[in-house]
């Protein structure tokens, strides 16, 4: 049966309710929470600081390290605490999604640590994490060329949808496409895909992400300005 109506009644180009908040971890140099519906991510930034071990220091530019972790009770079936291969990979793509905007050459020999923690999961966690991380980096006063907006697109039965939740993830034939985009230029810094799509569908998905990223950007901007009201 073709997927013509979304399980939760949303329009195909409609995201779940999003919200961002900054300064949620007092000890951190910068921190933020970002949520897509029931998916809640928090991110904390510590840095720039001295990088150990010394031999890893780069005199030309700083290093960005991203860690992603889902807390054990963030999902229905308890996740064993601790890093696994998935969190390792997500940490890496998170780092790659943020690197293009950070002016790391201004932080020689230093390291900037970003910790993303998923408090509640309903799909789209890595995207929520990237949105939160980008806010946390800005909150930490780091030199950034732009914020980063991320959201998961889905493709099923030739139709493109935005911000799929965990029930939609399980719909037969659903392709999951997490994308991160720089709001000012529309350039892509994260792109992953698993499923099956053709070139047109992919292009349509990317354009849809670009369209809704404005909403995400506004929510991020609002969160940063709220801190100073």
């Amino acid at each position, binding site marked *: 049966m073709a997927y013509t109506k979304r399980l939760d009644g949303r329009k195909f180009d409609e995201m779940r309710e999003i919200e961002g908040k900054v300064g949620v971890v007092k000890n951190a140099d910068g921190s933020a929470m970002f949520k897509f519906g029931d998916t809640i991510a928090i991110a904390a930034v510590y840095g720039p*600081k001295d990088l150990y071990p010394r031999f890893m220091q780069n005199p030309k530019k700083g290093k960005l390290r991203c860690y992603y972790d889902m807390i054990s009770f963030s999902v229905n079936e308890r996740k064993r605490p601790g890093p696994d291969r998935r969190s390792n990979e997500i940490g890496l793509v998170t780092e790659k999604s943020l690197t293009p905007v950070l002016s790391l050459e201004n*932080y020689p020999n230093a390291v900037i640590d970003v910790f993303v923690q998923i408090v509640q999961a309903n799909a789209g966690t890595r995207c929520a994490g990237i949105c939160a991380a980008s806010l946390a980096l800005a909150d930490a006063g780091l030199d950034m060329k*732009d914020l980063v907006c991320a959201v998961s697109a889905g493709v099923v039965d030739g139709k493109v949808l935005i911000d799929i939740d965990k029930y939609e993830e399980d719909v037969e034939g659903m392709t999951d496409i997490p994308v991160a985009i720089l709001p000012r230029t529309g350039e892509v810094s994260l792109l992953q895909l698993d499923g099956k799509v053709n070139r047109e569908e992919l292009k349509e998905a990317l354009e849809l992400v670009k369209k809704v990223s404005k909403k995400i950007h506004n929510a991020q901007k609002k969160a940063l300005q709220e801190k100073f009201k």
Partner: protein
Amino acid sequence: MGELKVKEKEIVVPGEVLANGMDFLPGEGVYREKDDLIASKLGLVNVNSRLVKLIPLSGRYIAKAGDTVIGTVVDITFGGWLMDIGAVNNANLSIKDTSEYIGRDADLTQYYNFGDVVCVKINKVIRSKMIDITTKDQECRKLKGGMLIKINPSKVPRVIGKGGSMVSMIKESTGCRITVGQNGVVWVSGTDSKKEKLARDVIKKIEKEAHKEGLTDKIKEFLKK
């Protein structure tokens, strides 16, 4: 030719277009891409004739030559001391840069020992890895007694105030000696612990509300209590 797209003192986020056209020049926290001047950090817009820059609202301390900072001795080496000034790297105080005359075989702990808190001035910063400091300046000295308060370095100008007006007001009301380091470390020493707590609370309040209008009056009221 050009157009300013934001107002003075507006809070802008990284990536926000501040101005358009070659008339304007990018200052601190602002970069140019083609015709646009774009914010490169979270900050407050400050326009001075044609220079558009941002006053940072957060961030760790980045060492700058000429800054007066308060640091703690964390190590003693052959030629001097290493001090933690809250920057990415520790700062280096050489014997030759101290105000005292120290002979080559002297026991360095007699001058500055582990854990000593000292007000120093930054001489030069090389690639933010080597920070040379000196005590050969009027303000520089060992700080004894009192307590240290850590505030975000971006709030230091507010705590000091125009021409030192804010910090003078706090000193007068609380009777405490106060030294404010550009690195966000503030030393407070008074004779009465209640007055010291008031000074600490006031400084923390300024840090929290630094970006708001009418702060000076609010603080005046707060100090009256």
